[in-house]
């Protein structure tokens, strides 16, 4: 039962991803991307990471995609003309396929070792995923977390400075 559901979601995710790269209109691409994000959120839930799923939907589907769609509409972008060079498409296909083949090879060959941590499905259910993540972030990863906040601040300042008409 679960495996069928997985394949279904996986199919939707891949088809949506395909739409992202094939659609003429950037709006359609964006909607395909949102769809992919939702599928990934479902995967996260299936992987016992409900907090990450929520963050995925809120940050990606909510914030980033809205920002992107907003810019698309702000710039009033229409459909894109066909790519001029077939040469670029051919070589790009070869490159992507090689990447795919390489990664699949590693996945097939790889031996992921057994579980070693203590964040079992049971633990997640009994304590709550949010609490576990919170503990990790505010104890072990406190410094990187603070630095990330500074990074965000800098990005905000940079975005404002770049987008302003006159400084």
């Amino acid at each position, binding site marked *: 039962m679960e495996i069928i559901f997985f394949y279904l979601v996986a199919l939707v995710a*891949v088809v949506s991803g395909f739409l*992202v790269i094939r659609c003429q209109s950037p709006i359609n*691409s964006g909607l395909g991307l949102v769809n992919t994000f939702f599928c990934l959120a479902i995967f996260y839930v299936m*992987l016992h990471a409900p907090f990450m799923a929520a963050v995925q939907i809120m940050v990606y589907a909510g914030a980033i995609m809205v920002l*992107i769609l907003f810019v698309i509409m702000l710039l009033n972008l229409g459909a894109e003309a066909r790519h001029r060079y077939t040469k670029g498409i051919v070589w*790009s296909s070869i490159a992507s396929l090689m990447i795919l083949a390489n*990664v699949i090879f590693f996945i097939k060959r790889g031996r992921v070792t057994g579980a070693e941590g203590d*964040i079992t499905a049971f633990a997640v259910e009994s304590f709550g995923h949010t609490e576990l993540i919170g503990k990790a972030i505010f104890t072990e990863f406190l410094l990187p977390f603070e630095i990330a906040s500074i990074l*965000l601040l800098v990005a905000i300042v940079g975005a404002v400075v770049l987008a302003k008409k006159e400084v």
Partner: protein
Amino acid sequence: MISVYHYMTVSAILFALGTYGVLTRRNAIVIFMCIELMLNSVNLTFIALSSHLQSMDGQIFVMFVMVVAAAEAAVGLALMITFYRNRDSIDVDDMNLLKL
């Protein structure tokens, strides 16, 4: 039974799709979205392995990837607005200043 390899295969397919998109599309915003797609495929791998190994570290990494993606979105989109303002286009074929 769904193994970690299933998730990773999906992730690989999405990553390859993102790569193809970055290399072929001419619209800068679509390229940008393809990059988001690649980042997300990596996120999927992180969380799948984190769940499989029963460790929280992978998920923390995903948090940081998201932070970087958000920052990138803000700065990248601001750049695109500036570029559009100058060239009246966000076609990457118009971005050829690297050639002298």
